[in-house]
């Protein structure tokens, strides 16, 4: 399942929407935390915000077009959402043209901001190429329940196995400087069934999460432990389809005792697929 908006609470078509995502034990995209309660991957919170924006635009455009990942000017990670938490998603559309939607968004838990997206651009493409419009209309009808109180779904079955986001192989790694890694998109990845049924492609959110993790590994060289705090100027230039071999290069641009800035570039067949910057801050009082 690669759908992350459980309910749409408010919808002003083409302008604004509020929705919720319950973080449940069945969530696949979680990671273990020091406190023992798994937390949702930050980039999946971003994905949920993007999906809420997408529902809004698709409904406003009568499901004739859909947005896909394009540019994220800024992602700011401020906190986390653990299993049991309810994420409040709030997406504001700055403008919609025939070609693209521009929006910004905030996710919070109990009134505290956990993640923010700024200057986000999603190209609008013909729906027919990606999804069955009827299927999306039905799904929309199921989750668009403005009057209902947000209720967490009943957990079904065992806790899900956390999804493996790592690259297949790290081709080179010069600690504190740069790394190159490769990942094969096989077509067997479970998220491809929903993203998208008629055109399976690697979601930008998952790619970004794996890049943030690769960057973190690059910064592990005996000094302070760095944790990702966000990303900037992230741009997906082309679709990464099954059969692709994605080569990611990431290098340290700036680094101090408090923070680090890394720049990444991913290529498929030598062509630019995704570029951007990853930001980290040194975790206070921790070192290894």
């Amino acid at each position: 399942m690669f759908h992350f908006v459980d309910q749409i609470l408010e919808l002003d078509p083409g302008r604004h929407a509020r929705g919720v995502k319950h973080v449940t034990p069945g969530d696949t995209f979680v990671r273990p935390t020091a406190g023992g309660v798994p937390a949702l991957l930050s980039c999946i919170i971003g994905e949920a915000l993007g999906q809420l924006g997408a529902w809004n635009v698709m409904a406003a455009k009568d499901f004739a077009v859909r947005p896909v990942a394009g540019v994220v000017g800024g992602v700011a990670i401020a906190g986390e959402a653990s299993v049991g938490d309810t994420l409040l998603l709030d997406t504001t559309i700055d403008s919609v043209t025939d070609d693209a939607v521009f929006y910004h968004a905030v996710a919070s838990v109990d009134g505290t901001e956990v993640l923010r997206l700024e200057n986000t651009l999603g190209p609008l493409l013909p729906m027919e190429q990606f999804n069955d419009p009827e299927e999306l209309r039905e799904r929309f009808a199921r989750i668009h329940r403005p009057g209902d109180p947000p209720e967490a779904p009943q957990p079904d079955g065992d806790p899900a196995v956390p999804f493996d986001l790592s690259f297949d192989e790290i081709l080179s790694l010069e600690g504190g400087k740069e790394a190159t890694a490769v990942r094969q998109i096989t077509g067997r990845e479970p998220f491809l069934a929903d993203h998208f049924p008629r055109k399976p492609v690697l979601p930008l959110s998952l790619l970004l999460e794996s890049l943030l993790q690769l960057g973190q590994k690059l910064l592990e060289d005996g000094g302070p432990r760095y944790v990702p705090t966000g990303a900037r100027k992230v741009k997906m230039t082309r679709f990464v389809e099954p059969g692709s071999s994605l080569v990611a290069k990431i290098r340290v641009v700036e680094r101090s005792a408090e923070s680090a800035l890394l720049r990444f570039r991913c290529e498929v067949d030598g062509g630019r697929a995704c570029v951007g910057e990853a930001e980290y801050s040194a975790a206070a009082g921790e070192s290894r």
Partner: protein
Amino acid sequence: MNTDTIYPKVREIVADVLAFDEPEIQRDGSLVDDYSAESIDFLDLVYQLEREFKIKIPRGMIEQEARHGLSDDEFEENGRLTDKGLEQLKAYLSEVPEDRFTPQMQVALIPALFTVETICKIVLRELDRGEQAASS
């Protein structure tokens, strides 16, 4: 105002959008051939320019203006430029080197001709338009 005035800012935005360092961006560089601009980059570029200069760059504006006085049929045929259309476009995109134009080129590929200077001209035109609108 001329394009020299806005060039530094345009160059900064172009470099930013296309993920190049500023010194690598040349005024006569082709966005597509020299800086590998893809369609998402054009969307991003237009959006960033609109925000920075507080202008609105209408979609298809270049084609509209380039055909200046020519009807659709005179300008293009089945999505390809006529000889007349090509001459008009060359005159309009005077900053683009002659050898980059090809006879009967596709109208959809016109943006592939754009240089950084073309972008400056587009911005300047919209700034002028905005001023005229404000003073009338």
